[in-house]
């Protein structure tokens, strides 16, 4: 195509024209090879300015346009739309940035004008070799995968399902509900956690648009935005759930007792078990690790007592494949192991417990029916210490970040303890009190002023046992006094850490995790629920420690991002992707190793190895192109030749 390029130089009022001699730019570019027309106008982006461009394209039969104006960030889309209105391919229009990168940062009019001419020439060189492109259309599978069935996953799944799209919800445990199901009451309203959560769990279980895979894990993921293929491992439960009616006789008769995960080890469960009475689905699984039959080859009592023939000892893990268009990762958190805090006797003293254990002691459905008893001797503790920032805000030894919820839940714990044990004495040790949510500060004030909770500013240095009591050594940093406080029980506000499985999962999904193991968002301010991999979103504590309101808000935000995708007929993708000259390609595969998106593959074609580009996956970074030793890879409209010509033009 013989280039017939028109150059349109904008004054931007005086923004450009006061520093750059626009007339001189027009004159200088008129004779430049490939340029058949050049003119200036006071406001090129105005209606008359755009009309000027459209009419010149027709009159002069222009096949390329350069608008010398402000940054392409502002009006590239505007002018590409302008030229396409008269039939010119939008990718044959480019912007020469002579405002932000020239007139606004320079003062010497002569030199600024010379520089503006160079910028325009370089963009003319680019347009000369620009191809006519069309956006790449990608079909979308309008089904979503939600990984994790805690409150974040539940909320996201319900939002998408209620909008009319199918959702696949994968939960690794036998029941959905996550940690929220373990909580007693929630701050700052003291709503019963189960009362607000279980209806949502039931809704998920019964929703016609939600396919729930509980006791399952994501094994593998392939594909790309709009077109993911996910392989899910359904872990063998050894119970045929289609036959099981949930009568519970098997659990009653099972002779093996193991510590209950749901009750945080405060009580036991059987080897065949439902994690908690309100579980969804309410069907048991056999814990292979602890089942007597799997350990010794004898027992099978559950099988004998099951009148429905639901026990299947020969069951194997199964795999299913599902196609989805978008994924929400909501894999949640764990508490930092208490054993790592040796100076507090974590794991050594029975009455030094973590926050979730105390939740179970407070819960009406917990092992004590909501009456606070200390684990060692079931005595009602008369003094309880609540210690915040255990493992958090400790960059030297543990985690550098703030776990966000501990200040609030320890306040709640102290308050609820006081409600259960009115003559009890709760003491909270803190560094700062962070109460920045709606109604949170008032809640802390209430604990201090109305509920008579003692707050001591100071970090506990050591906890030891003495004569059936626990002794805390600390310094009150407001008075400077060293303290020795004797209590019956200690609750540690442990750091929140990401669910350990998230590391492997992130590798499978090709999403990023940060230095602390949390999932990384695409932009900390403006893209908080997206990952850098298109089509994969995140919600809840997998992203960072957060409370229930923030988790629910983020889950709904992630769901709305998925729905935004699903509201389109097909996805549009920038066509400036990598290309391969198959004759030049030696099939070395360097591009495959360089691509962060898995968009490059080697294919054998007529017995020859050649590199391929998956256009839907390619994000157009150009890494592979610069790395290709054979010069076989190019980027559409940013070819090597274009860039070299641009370099030459600016150095003329």
């Amino acid at each position: 195509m013989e280039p017939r390029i028109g150059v349109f130089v904008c004054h931007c009022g005086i923004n450009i024209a006061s520093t750059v001699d626009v007339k001189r730019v027009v004159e200088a570019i008129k004779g430049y090879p490939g340029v058949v027309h050049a003119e200036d106008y006071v406001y090129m982006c105005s209606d008359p300015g755009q009309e000027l461009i459209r009419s010149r394209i027709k009159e002069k039969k222009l096949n390329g346009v350069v608008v010398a104006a402000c940054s392409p960030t502002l009006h590239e889309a505007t002018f590409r739309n302008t030229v396409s209105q008269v039939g010119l391919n939008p990718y044959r229009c480019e912007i020469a940035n002579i405002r932000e990168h020239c007139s606004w940062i320079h003062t010497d009019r002569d030199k600024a004008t010379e520089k503006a001419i160079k910028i325009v020439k370089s963009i003319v060189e680019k347009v000369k070799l620009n191809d006519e492109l069309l956006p790449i259309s990608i079909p979308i599978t309008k089904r979503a995968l939600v990984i994790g069935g805690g409150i974040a996953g539940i909320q996201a799944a319900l939002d998408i399902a209620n909008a009319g799209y199918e959702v696949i919800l994968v939960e690794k445990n036998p029941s959905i509900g996550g940690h929220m199901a373990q909580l007693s009451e929630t701050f700052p309203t003291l709503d019963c956690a189960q009362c607000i959560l279980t209806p949502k769990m039931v809704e998920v279980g019964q929703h016609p648009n939600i396919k729930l895979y509980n006791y399952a894990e994501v094994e593998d993921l392939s594909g790309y935005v709009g077109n993911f293929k996910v392989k899910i491992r359904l872990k063998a439960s050894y119970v045929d759930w289609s036959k099981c009616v949930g009568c519970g006789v098997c659990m009653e008769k099972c002779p093996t007792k193991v510590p209950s995960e749901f009750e945080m080890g405060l009580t036991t469960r059987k080897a065949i078990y439902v994690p908690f009475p309100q579980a969804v689905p309410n069907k048991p699984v056999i814990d292979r690790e602890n089942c007597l039959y799997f350990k010794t080859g004898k027992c099978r009592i559950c099988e004998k007592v099951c009148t429905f023939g639901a026990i299947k000892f020969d069951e194997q893990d199964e795999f299913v494949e599902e196609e989805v268009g978008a994924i929400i990762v909501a894999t949640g958190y764990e508490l930092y192991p208490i054993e790592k805090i040796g100076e507090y006797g974590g794991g050594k003293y029975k009455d030094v417990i973590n926050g979730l254990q105390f939740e179970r002691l407070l819960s009406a459905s917990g092992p004590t029916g909501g009456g606070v008893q200390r684990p060692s001797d079931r005595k009602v503790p008369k003094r309880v210490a609540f210690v915040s920032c255990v493992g958090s805000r400790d960059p030297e030894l543990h985690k550098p970040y703030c776990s966000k919820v501990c200040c609030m839940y320890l306040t709640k714990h102290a308050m609820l303890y006081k409600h259960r044990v009115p003559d009890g004495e709760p003491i909270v040790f803190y560094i700062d009190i962070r109460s920045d949510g709606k109604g949170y500060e008032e809640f802390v004030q209430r604990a201090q002023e109305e509920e008579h909770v003692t707050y001591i500013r100071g970090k506990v240095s050591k906890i030891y046992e003495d004569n059936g009591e626990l002794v805390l050594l600390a310094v009150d940093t407001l008075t400077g006094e060293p303290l020795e406080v004797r209590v019956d029980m200690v609750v540690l506000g442990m750091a929140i850490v990401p669910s350990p499985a998230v590391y492997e999962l992130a590798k499978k999904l090709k999403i990023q995790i940060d230095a602390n193991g949390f999932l990384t968002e695409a932009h900390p301010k403006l893209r908080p629920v997206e990952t850098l991999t298109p089509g994969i979103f995140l919600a809840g504590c997998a992203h960072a420690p957060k409370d229930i309101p923030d988790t629910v808000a983020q889950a709904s935000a992630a769901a709305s991002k998925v729905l935004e995708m699903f509201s389109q007929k097909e996805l549009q993708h920038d066509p400036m992707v990598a290309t391969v000259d198959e004759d030049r390609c030696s099939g070395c595969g360097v591009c495959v190793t360089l691509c962060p998106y898995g968009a490059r593959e080697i294919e054998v074609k007529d017995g020859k190895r050649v590199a391929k580009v998956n256009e839907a996956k390619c994000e157009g970074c150009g890494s592979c192109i610069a790395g290709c030793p054979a010069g076989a890879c190019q980027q559409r409209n940013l070819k090597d030749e274009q860039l070299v010509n641009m370099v030459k033009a600016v150095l003329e």
Partner: protein
Amino acid sequence: MEGFEPKIVAFCCKWCSYAAADLAGTSRLKIKPNFVVIRTMCSSRVDPEFILQAFLNGADGVLVAGCHPGDCHYVNGNYKTLRRVMLLKKVLEQLGIDPRRLRLEWIAASESRKFVVTIRKFVDELKQLGPLRLEAGDDNGSNG
């Protein structure tokens, strides 16, 4: 070297340093017009060949600017850039081009001031180095 004004080609990543240069304009910061920006999608699009071409065609210095480590818009392109630039600096040395003429900087979209300071310092350093003379070798006679 009196009156010598070095010519700089600045390859800027669309997502960070290009935007930082835009912000320098929006903030009306002032720099000398010794440089021209060429926009790429990512610093890792910058083929070492472009840098050599710039030197061959009269550039006294080349700046490659990308996102800070860990912040790459394309996951890890900036690490590839880092490797390539480090290698190329060794090659430049062998070609008789002072490797200080090639600069790699991490400039976030918000760091307009860093962009300006980077250019200023680079201009100053290149003034010290003098014009690039490929035929004569790049020592400007200082070693005889």
